[in-house]
């Protein structure tokens, strides 16, 4: 993980039950990307997909948060202790 600016509070989250670190203020996409997690869902035909546009128009970054599928990772801030799963 590399950031040119390490300011900001460190937080932890889990993705598919594995623990990772991120910074407060990251979107879920940024948090996953900074941890080299490139796959967040599979299509209907089971093809793996990852974030693409980071601005809310491609709908590739979908994840499952708080039991709800279809959450756009680029439009949600990560919170300390957040549990994220691959979108179903």
């Amino acid at each position: 993980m590399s950031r040119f600016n390490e300011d900001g509070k460190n937080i932890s989250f889990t993705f598919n039950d594995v623990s990772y670190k991120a910074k407060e203020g990251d979107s879920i996409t940024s948090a996953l990307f900074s941890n080299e997690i490139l796959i967040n869902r599979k299509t209907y035909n089971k093809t793996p997909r990852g974030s693409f546009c980071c601005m809310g128009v491609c709908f590739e970054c979908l994840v499952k948060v708080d039991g709800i599928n279809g959450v756009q990772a680029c439009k949600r801030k990560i919170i300390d202790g957040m549990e994220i799963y691959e979108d179903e």
Partner: protein
Amino acid sequence: MEKIYDFLIIGGGITGSSLAYGLSKECSLDIAMVDAYDHTYRASVGNYGLAWLQSKGYKNPFYAQMTERSIYLWKDFAKEIEEKSGIDIEYEQTGGFHFCFNKEDFDIRKEKMDLINTYYKHENTKTIMLDRKETMELYPHLGEEVFGSSYNKLDGYLSPGQLLKAQIKLCKEQNVNLISNYCTSTIKKENNVYIIKSEDGRILKTKQLVLAAGLSNKKLAKQLEVDVPISPEKGHILVCQKVSNLKLLPSLDIRQSQDGTILLGHSNEDRGYDLSIEEDVVQRIINNAVKILPMLKDMNLIRSWSSLRIIPKDGKAIYDTIDNSLHVVSTHSAITFAPIHVNEVSKSILSGKMPDNLQDFSLKRFEKGVSQ
């Protein structure tokens, strides 16, 4: 010398392509099918996608019997289309429901179904009533507000888009001349030949003319001084996300296509040609659907659209032949009736008239002095 077609069908939707395909199977005459623009009113692509029996023909035995005939043909028809075109039209005859929310609705529905059941020729066609427990055996995620249902095992669904694609492909393969972006503006008859002209001036001639142009049938027929009393009826469809770990049996309110997409429907509005999405209709459809399937609440609506059904003045259908050469077909059940259109109706058109068993649907019933 300009070419004179043997048959020209105006309308390249489900009805038009069913008839063109059927005709091309029966003969090697010159057939053309003209279709207007990509953005015209197209009932075919606004279709909910059911091959449906149980709600059809209340107090209308002929309609019920025609539907019955068609439903029994559907499985073989789907097989034929798929084998010949290589396109999967995703037809499944799973059985389907109409949900009732209280005893009163249930009793009314039972009365209707019992009456329609008396019209059918086969015992096997009957629609049965199921109490809540029986409904839940087939529809496990049922909401608690559902009292019971009517169920018919012959009801089913398919992909209207794939059916249209397959029929058009088959038409082309069987040498039907498909002329797109051809918006018919005038029709006249001269010396037993129909001469049609498009908005951009292209002229086509034909001996036999079939009007299968949806709502445009009215204005086209008028040019030949034939009155076709049809009008638009709006319906809304809501498309929700795909759900992979669920398989829902269809109803008019909710159905699931083969790829998992959930569709919500069941609305009728009298709005002329206005296609705007109406908030209160959308809410009503959603509230109704959520009562039937509460898990919908957490799903996403992806898009909505509305489309116009073709409704004859008395709500039935129109099948008529005038002067042994002008054939008019206007129906809002083009999907359900596709097997009959492809077989019975096409064969009959070739012999210069509509099938005898469709006489009840001729235009004569609208003439003054004729009792309904």
